């Protein structure tokens, strides 16, 4: 009987191993980093050429005089010149420091707000629609108040950047929590997750995709508010991307103006691609939300 049991046991083990081998998803080695980077890059390069081509055609059509709308052939060399000056990097550094401080504050405030609103039904009923209202408010409408409160100072810019981004971040977290499958919450409860443990190990990780979407949108809003702020709140003797734009307009230097606008666009694309989209893709891949091996 004992021997017979052993035989059954081995058989069972073999059957399970066989089924597992047949069923389990085979993870094939993907293409290397270089080829992945290339396949992500070439459509972008192509699109960029397309945009430059259209721009050049508009310039050739003499719709506006060259001094008001210069073509890429003069703007791109100007951009190259700017990249070699110390003043340019000073301006970028000031703007990026403001962006990071403002966005960081917005993340802290938005996250706390989001947790509060998603965990308390009273707060949710009270502030839920409030947050969406704040989110849809153009950040530029806050500037008159900000200037009255903080004068023409760093504080005024920061105030608006935070107000622009925090509601999106809070809203992202709230919608992330709202979309957690109830089964996962029940599983957490059944395993004995309570209070902070449940928040840290079940609720927040489950809400992460929504939260990251909120961060991404929050970043876009804070970047917009920041540039609007730098255009309006010109702090004397401090260079920034916004100040450089103002200066270029005052000097009728359309070439530098367009070069700086390319910089604003470029930083936005870079941060989104290198930080937010990369994080999003990573989360989706880890959770099996990206079809692997399917024909593209």
């Amino acid at each position, binding site marked *: 009987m004992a021997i017979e049991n052993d035989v059954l046991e081995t058989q069972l083990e073999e059957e399970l191993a066989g*089924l597992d081998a047949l069923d389990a998803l085979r993870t094939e080695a993907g293409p290397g980093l270089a080829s992945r980077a290339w396949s992500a890059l070439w459509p972008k390069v192509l699109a960029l050429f397309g945009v430059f081509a259209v721009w050049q055609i508009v310039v050739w059509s003499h719709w506006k005089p060259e001094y008001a709308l210069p073509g890429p052939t003069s703007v791109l060399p100007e951009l190259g010149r700017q990249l070699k000056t110390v003043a340019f990097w000073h301006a970028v550094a000031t703007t990026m420091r403001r962006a990071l401080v403002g966005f960081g504050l917005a993340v802290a405030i938005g996250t706390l707000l989001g947790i509060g609103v998603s965990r308390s039904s009273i707060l949710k009923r009270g502030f839920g629609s409030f947050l969406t209202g704040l989110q849809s408010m153009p950040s530029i409408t806050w500037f008159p108040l900000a200037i009255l409160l903080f004068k023409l100072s760093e504080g005024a810019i920061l105030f608006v950047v935070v107000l622009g981004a925090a509601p999106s971040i809070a809203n992202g977290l709230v919608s992330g929590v709202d979309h957690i499958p109830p089964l996962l919450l*029940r*599983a957490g409860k059944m395993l004995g997750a309570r209070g902070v443990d449940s928040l840290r190990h079940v609720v927040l990780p489950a809400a992460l995709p929504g939260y990251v979407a909120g961060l991404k949108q929050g970043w876009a809003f804070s970047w917009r508010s920041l540039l609007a702020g730098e255009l309006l709140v010109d702090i004397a003797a401090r260079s920034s991307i916004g100040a450089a734009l103002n200066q270029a307009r005052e000097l009728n230097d359309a070439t530098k103006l367009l070069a700086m606008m390319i910089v604003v666009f470029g930083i936005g694309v870079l941060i989104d691609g290198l930080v937010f989209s990369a994080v999003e893709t990573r989360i989706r891949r880890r959770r099996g939300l990206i079809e692997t091996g399917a024909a593209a």
Partner: protein
Amino acid sequence: MKTMTELAVAIDVRNVSQTYHDGRSALKALDGVSLSVAEGEFVCLLGASGCGKTTLLNLIVGLYHLKSGTIDVGGRRVALMFQEPALFPWLTVERNIDLAMRFRGIAKDHRAERIAELLTLVHLEGFGDRRPHELSGGMRQRVALARALAQEADVLLMDEPFGALDAMTRDVLHDEFERIWRTTGLTVLFVTHNVREAVRLGDRVLLLSSRPGRVVAEFPVDIERPRRIDDASVSVLAGEITDRLREEVRRHGH
């Protein structure tokens, strides 16, 4: 022969009723359900849809609020396995099992050792660092089983855990789970709508009526283990229970 102490009652459900209110209408899900499961016993709860099987399990584990009747598990720890694996997709297999122990406050060095033991028990050695989506349905359900066992519960409630699997995998998992049940000495209350599965696994099969749910018949399964789902004796008893179940379903046709 089991001694008296081994036959202590692990789950005692007395007169439990549960009504769902949905606006104007009220649906009686359970109506005076009474049942008891002895320590170490494997009881299958069988019923057609709408008999409140899932409701009863949720009441026993404490996920739902008990309004009428009593449920006594004598302070035993109760774990519940859902029909779906309900694993956390952001954690690896190991970390999923780890979390169950972490919530119970078990020290880290003990946990690592126990995870390895449990993975061996469910025959998933070497899959610890995979993520749930990389596994097949049957493998995920075994991880869920390992996670339930990691709670060191005395009582395991199972809500149609093999219902969504293909027949071949299900048969193998029956063997696997029977073996684990015999080595761990768990008390099991297993809900299913599959009559053969109930007879294949249970020491006893309880038949629940539908709308409202109520225990209407009880069938002891005196068939020697290990069993096979296609054993003649399993088929005979399954046939008998199916007849009784159909009679129950017909009642609702009038």
